[in-house]
């Protein structure tokens, strides 16, 4: 029983990162109809921003998260405004290839700048934790879950309570009608992608504290973000939060199966995704669009 509870807690804690990775991906997918294959690369850019600030200035990694968000928002805004907006009306294969190309460029530019060495962010409290009824809870994991929940809440608030958020809802519902009522499409598209990238940046900051990063470490996160969004259901932040936590749980239990270890992480994730897609395409929490 204790082992079971431990697994549940570890799964939920690990789910924090997946929530952070998933919300930005889900926003871009749901609103812009782009499956952003560069999402993992953006995540890792955030990781390197945190690493750079931590090693150069000794800044606490949690304090670098807002910097990640701002830096990645600017990068994302520029990418959408300058590049991706130009193929928004093309068939979906083109957005796939375009974002894959961006992914290739970002990852390899990072390789040129930082090399392929593993980098890790290790504040004094990393590796420490407290015990609660026989279960060890690492500080960093707990704080990153908190940060991910905060990020999702902030995003949900932004989307539902601000003018920008309402225009994002409008372009998601009907692009042409949104234009008719005076919404600047190019700007709003770019803001949406920028917000998605900002979430990716925060996720990257969290990931840098949990694992050592390399420029190529982001690729699994693109795929996992996709699974998380499918699992929760496309179109709402809260659904992605549920999806991320559920994914963390599935992963924790998958890894605890004797003999499998972590080597089948992708196979489990995708098996789960195909199962969800075929049996409940709207996701655990979603409504059919």
């Amino acid at each position, binding site marked *: 029983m204790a082992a079971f509870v431990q697994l549940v807690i570890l799964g939920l804690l690990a789910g924090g990162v997946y929530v952070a990775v998933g919300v930005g991906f889900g926003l871009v*997918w749901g609103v812009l*109809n782009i*499956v952003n294959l560069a999402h993992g690369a953006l995540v890792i850019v955030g990781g390197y921003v945190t690493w750079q600030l931590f090693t150069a200035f000794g800044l606490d990694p949690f304090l670098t998260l807002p910097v990640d968000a701002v830096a990645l928002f600017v990068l994302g805004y520029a990418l959408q405004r300058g*590049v991706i*907006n*130009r*193929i*928004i*009306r*093309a068939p*979906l*294969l*083109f957005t*796939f*290839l*375009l974002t*894959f*190309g*961006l*992914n*290739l*460029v970002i*990852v*390899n*530019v990072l*390789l*040129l700048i930082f090399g392929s060495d593993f980098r890790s962010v290790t504040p004094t409290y990393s590796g420490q934790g407290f015990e609660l009824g026989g279960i060890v809870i690492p500080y960093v994991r707990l704080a990153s879950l908190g940060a991910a929940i905060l990020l999702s809440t902030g995003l949900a608030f932004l989307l539902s309570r601000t003018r920008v958020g309402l225009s994002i809802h409008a372009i998601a519902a009907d692009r042409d009608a949104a234009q008719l009522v005076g919404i600047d*499409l*190019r700007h709003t*598209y770019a803001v949406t992608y920028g917000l998605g990238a900002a979430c990716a940046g925060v996720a990257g900051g969290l990931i840098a504290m949990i694992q050592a990063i390399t420029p190529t470490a982001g*690729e699994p996160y693109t*795929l996992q973000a*996709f*699974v998380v969004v*499918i699992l929760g259901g496309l179109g709402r932040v809260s659904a992605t939060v549920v999806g991320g936590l559920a994914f963390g749980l599935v992963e924790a239990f998958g890894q605890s199966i004797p*003999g499998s270890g972590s*080597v*089948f*992480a*992708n*196979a489990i*994730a*995708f*098996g789960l*995704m*195909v199962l969800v*897609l*075929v049996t409940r*395409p709207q996701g655990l929490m979603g409504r059919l669009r």
Partner: protein
Amino acid sequence: MIATADSQRRWRRIFLIVGGIVAAYALLAPLTSLDAAQAAGIPLLTDKFWFRIATYVVMFVVLATAWNIIGGITGYAAFGNVAFFGIGAYTTGMLIAKAKWPFLVALPLAPVLAALFAALVGLPLLRLRGHYFAVASLGVGVAVGELVQNIDYNGQPVFGGASGLFLPIYAVGHRGLFFFYLMCGAAAIAIAVTWWVLRSRFGYGLIAIRENEDAAAVIGVNTTAYKVAAFALAAALTGLAGGIFSQWNVFINQDNTFPIEYNVQMILMALLGGTGTVFGPAAGAVLLQLLIQFLGGSLPISFDLPFVSSEARPIVAQVILGLLLVVVVIFVPRGVIDFFGGRTRLSLSYLRRSLRDTSL
């Protein structure tokens, strides 16, 4: 107008003639290379390395042409075709290395098994559309590679595990030449199959599915059967290439039989050449694969990139490839072969028009 049409026709003829000469040269030159060219010292042909590059190029002709059947003709953006390549490679590899079958007996089973697997996963996956199908198929590609590398039985890796699988070297005179022509044979089959599909009732059904699946179903196309058949056909051709690759390369592992970048490369090749056509993907494959090899510095003719050290070169090559991908997707959505085929001319107004068609 008439003058333009004339000049377009001329360009089309020139392109066909030049393409034909290049193809004939590429196919026949290796034969002459062995003695005559070696004596003459023609650099490209005496190089054993050239056979490797040429075989890789032809392998991608097979992969891109096969992808075209499901992606170009049927319109389902398959992103995980590399799974079939790997399954083909491991089928042949296991039969040769573990069951000691002769290569030419083991090879036909590669497409069979790949097609069976495609039919099996195709039944649930092909119910999905658009993004969902694309990423689900990508997932299959990743997951199969992971399973093949990590499945153990009694603590022993079944498929060679992380250290890969070694095959005995196939004893045949002029190995390089043999596998080059074998791969050319696979490419010929792939192109012939595409040609047949585009002229058959089956192919018209697939095109109907691409244009409007619901309408296709209404006029009596059994969409599920057609889609699964197209998927299995593409998988069989891809698996055939994988089977040849395993014996040619002698060593197979997860990295060289399930590389995720192949998924994107074959799509880009088909797109570059023009999807839904017979020869487009093949032409795109030759162009792009030569470019990739050239940028990577592995062609016999090469040059130094300015300001780039030799260590950074492969990385810079990837950056260039990524930028190229972006530029092609944005500016030339109908493929570059369009220009040579004489339907369009490369001009500023063409680029501007294609940009306007797709941008916000």
